[in-house]
């Protein structure tokens, strides 16, 4: 079943004192995400990621186009009980405790009183906030608020979870926990749509990614496909105090690090380099094809924007 269906969704804002100038935030976006999929929405700051999420949450209204979640229009109130949302850099009511806040959100989500408290405690435990559950949120650090934000997003067991920059403001441990949480959601069959500009997170977590820049979707692809292709090169690492003579003539780019040499050379020179190592009696450590990384795909998709700006781009495009 299709979880999210975005059909030519477009957003522009009227700006200026007389609100006569139009500022394009999102060009017509067409995207489909299947249920159970983890989808990463990648792009630099101001690319249109947050605008897309706000349109899907019904926080801003589209200039054109429409979107459906689980087969229902986004402004259908029934959708809201099936989705969870973590905004970027979330901020909550200062004078509530974490427990009170989750309880309040549980009430608003229509969770029955019976079992709500137990679920709240379970979520606090899951994001590591059990010990601070009674502390007012104004005393929380940015990382603690982010964890609480994640807890409120999945509190009511939604089928589709939207996360806007979920790793933002977290330390390495916190990021690891968020990654674990997303993986857990995937194993529970939830659909996760998250925006990020941290490519390693997207590569580790996503089934598919979409790259957006200046309000325009530049490309969509499965992470496995994007990173499986080799570039016709191999990387070889071997023990040697210096780069052996003859390696450069094979077309290798080599560098020495301590007693190791790391070289990248064309795939067809693989046998020749192994022969060279045998001849020189050098110890091979590893030999592996050089794979495409998500970063390369990302940069490749963003590159066309470096050309002369189009008419709308000159007017300015923001998130």
């Amino acid at each position, binding site marked *: 079943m299709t979880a999210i269906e975005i059909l030519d969704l477009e957003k522009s*804002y009227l700006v200026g004192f007389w609100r006569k100038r139009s500022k394009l935030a999102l060009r017509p976006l067409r995207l489909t995400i299947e249920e159970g999929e983890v989808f990463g929405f990648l792009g630099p700051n101001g690319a249109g990621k947050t605008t897309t999420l*706000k349109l899907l*949450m*019904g*926080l*801003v*209204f589209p200039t054109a186009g429409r979107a459906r979640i689980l087969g229902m229009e986004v402004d259908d*109130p*029934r959708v*809201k*009980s099936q*989705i*969870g*949302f973590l*905004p970027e*850099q*979330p*901020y*909550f*009511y*200062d*004078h*509530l405790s974490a427990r*009170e806040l989750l309880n*309040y*959100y549980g*009430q*608003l*989500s*229509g969770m029955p009183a019976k079992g709500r408290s137990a679920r709240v405690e379970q979520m606090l435990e899951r994001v590591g906030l059990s010990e601070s559950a009674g502390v*007012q949120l104004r005393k929380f650090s940015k990382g603690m608020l982010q964890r609480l*934000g994640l807890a*409120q997003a999945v509190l*009511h067991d939604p089928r589709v979870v*939207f996360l806007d920059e979920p790793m933002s403001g977290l330390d390495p441990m916190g990021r690891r926990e968020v990654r674990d949480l997303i993986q857990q959601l995937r194993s529970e069959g939830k659909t996760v749509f998250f925006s990020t500009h941290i490519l390693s997170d997207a590569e580790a977590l996503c089934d598919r990614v979409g790259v957006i820049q200046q309000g325009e979707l530049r490309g969509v692809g499965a992470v496995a496909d994007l990173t499986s292709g080799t570039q016709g090169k191999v990387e070889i690492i071997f023990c040697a105090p210096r780069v052996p003579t003859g390696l450069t003539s094979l077309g290798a780019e080599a560098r020495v690090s301590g007693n190791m040499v790391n070289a990248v050379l064309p795939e067809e020179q693989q046998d020749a380099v192994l022969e060279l190592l045998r001849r020189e009696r050098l110890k091979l450590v590893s030999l592996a094809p050089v794979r495409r990384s998500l970063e390369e795909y990302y940069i490749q998709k963003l590159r066309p924007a470096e050309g002369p700006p189009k008419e709308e781009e000159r007017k300015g495009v923001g998130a």
Partner: protein
Amino acid sequence: MNSRIGYIAFNTFREAVRDRVLYNLIAFALLLSGAAILVGQISIDIERLVVVNLGLTAVSLFGVVIAIFIGIGLVSKEMDKRTLYTVLSRPVRRWEFVVGKFFGLTGTLVVNTFFMALGVFLALLYVTHRFERMDVWVLVALYFIVLQFLIVCALALFFSSFSTPLMSAVFTFALFVIGSLSEDLRGFARITHGVGGWIATAIAYGVPNFSALNVINQVAHGDAVAGRLILYNSLYALLYSAMAISGAVLAFQRRNLK
């Protein structure tokens, strides 16, 4: 009441109380205690008049200031801090949010007024040593003050649904001042003719009639308040608040939460 409205109202009330909104009661209590002691020493035979006048005017002013300053922040603060995003991404309709916020603030003001009223009656007891039958009209004056708060709250919410907090405060306070002079405006409209007369009449009847809700001087003199006025004022305040809240809902309904 729709349960979501109730949850939002309770949360608004809880936030306001914990945000030390009710701390004004301490200032109010000190003001009234000092005034009562002073009045007891310097007034002869008019202690009741002075204490009721001073006490009810203070209740009204304190409450209006709180209503404006919390009212204008109810929506804009949630937008600025983005707490609204996590509320509206749940099965909460925008009108439920606005109405819940209104009830929450109204509840805060009612509790606030209750404690201030307690202070007024204690001060009254201090200077007159006993309650009299006519003191019941002080309760009616307090009820009218609460009705004023309803209208001020609704107006603050209305302006803040499409304007900046500063402009909302200016508009609401201006309407409170003009509305307090509405009887004079109506008198002016009656003696003005032509286009000027129509404009004056439109303004006089368009602004909230806070004059009719002010019976402080009357009850301070121990005069009764007509039952019909109580009924009319109640209906007027409910209708005016409902109109302002409907306006707030309409403005908020299509607002982009950037």
